[in-house]
């Protein structure tokens, strides 16, 4: 059972810089994922525009019929979002953690060029561990 | 999430506000008669009845959906079933059956043995060719159109013409998906 279906990271201009799928049925190809990213980017922006109250920072949780989508946006405008089973908990925490990993292993990586797709195995490893841990944590309860 | 199973027609009918069928039957009859006197041609009356039915259908569908927890009508087959089993029951208090599916499941018959519309009704000789219950076909057409199914509804059997039951043939022409209405897409 996969609590988490996939993870997306989008740079401030809406470009997909990281996408990992954890076994969702019919995973999508890169084009689709790119389009999804930009679409989400704009939706996220629109959602802020439509806020009845000022100071809206965009969608944090989208509850679809078959999944939840948790989204975290760093102050730098990078968006992280996970697609998980409906009602999965602690996703905010997970996203925070992933953000830390991102800062540690991506931003601090001298070879990483900003706003570019992420190719750092350290990040991948830690990420997968985090996801695992999270799973374990889940299993733990 | 999975759609809630549609509630049974009887349960709903038991719950909805009801009135004497007489009032309904007689009112409908009076309307048909008035149409006949006003329009003279039977064909024209059929047309108007269908039109009226259509207009009713497009309103009624919402009540139907709201009261029978039908949350999606994507599959024509099951939609037809629901209309026959639940729809007829919850409104007219009679059950209809769906039969004669064709191969590709786009055409079926809704059969009514009992029909409150025609209590007391006897067609005069001058009104042969009148589809007395044509309003029903209109309603079905209208309702289905609102759930994005373009259909064509025709009478196969009519008790007022001596048949043993009422049979409506419902033929699915096409399903119209929802388009983004505004052309200027920012």
């Amino acid at each position: 059972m996969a609590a988490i279906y996939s993870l997306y990271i989008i740079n401030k201009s809406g470009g997909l810089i990281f996408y990992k799928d954890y076994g969702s049925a019919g995973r999508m190809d890169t084009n689709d994922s790119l389009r999804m990213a930009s679409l989400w980017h704009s939706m996220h922006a629109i959602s802020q525009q439509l806020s009845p109250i000022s100071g809206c920072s965009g969608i944090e949780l989208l509850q679809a019929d078959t999944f939840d989508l948790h989204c975290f946006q760093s102050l730098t405008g990078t968006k992280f979002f996970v697609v998980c089973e409906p009602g999965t908990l602690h996703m905010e925490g997970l996203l925070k953690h992933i953000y830390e990993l991102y800062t540690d292993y991506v931003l601090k990586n001298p070879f990483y060029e900003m706003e570019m797709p992420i190719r750092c195995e350290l990040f991948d490893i830690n990420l997968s561990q985090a996801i695992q841990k999270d799973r374990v944590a889940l299993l733990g309860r | 999430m999975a759609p809630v199973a549609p509630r049974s027609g009887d349960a709903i009918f038991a719950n909805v506000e009801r009135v004497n069928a007489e009032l309904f039957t007689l009112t409908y009859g009076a309307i048909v008669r008035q149409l006949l006197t006003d329009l003279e041609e039977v064909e024209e009356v059929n047309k108007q009845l269908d039109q009226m039915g259509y207009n009713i259908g497009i309103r009624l569908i919402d009540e139907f959906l709201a009261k029978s927890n039908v949350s999606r009508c994507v599959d024509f087959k099951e939609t037809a079933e629901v209309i026959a089993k639940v729809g007829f029951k919850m409104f007219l208090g009679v059950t209809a059956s769906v039969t004669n599916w064709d191969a590709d499941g786009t055409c079926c018959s809704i059969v009514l043995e009992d029909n409150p519309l025609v209590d007391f009704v006897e067609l005069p000789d001058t009104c042969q060719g009148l589809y007395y219950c044509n309003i029903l076909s209109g309603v079905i057409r209208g309702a289905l159109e609102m759930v994005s199914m373009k259909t064509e509804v025709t009478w196969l059997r009519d008790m007022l013409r001596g048949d043993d039951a009422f049979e409506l043939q419902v033929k699915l022409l096409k399903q119209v998906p929802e388009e983004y209405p505004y052309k200027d897409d920012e």
Partner: protein
Amino acid sequence: MGREVAESCVDSILTEMVSTYCNRFYANKPELAARRIEAIGYQVGHQLSERYTMERPRFNDHLEAIKFICKDFWSELFKKQIDNLKTNHRGTFVLQDNKFRWLSRMSIDPSENGDLSQDNPEAAENKAAQMTSMHLYFPCGIIRGALSNLGIPCAVSADMSNLPACSFVVRIKA
């Protein structure tokens, strides 16, 4: 208890009937439309009175007949009686139904205007009032039909000055 159908059957058929006559056939001739709608009601009332007076002794006078309309007849149709009957004892009766079913769902929002109603609100108001009155020709017809079938020729008009209450004025033709 005879067979029943969902109330919304009657509601929607009435709604459609009225709009058919008012908006499609005689869009610009409301008086003709009214005449038709009333006629339809008349036939229904005529037939219903035949039905509902079975098994009951004949009425001696107009008042009895009117009372019948207020009580049994009305409850057959609306599951409630007329709430208030007034008369001037000279052939005019006022039947008031404090919550007339067929008006219970009718409403338009006077406050709404601007982008929603293109024309100015009171015009919309009038339009709505006119439509409402169109809907009332039917029950008027029913009453008239019933009474005339009971041998009481009369004219019936409706007054909906305070919705959802509605009163029907019956003037018996001497």
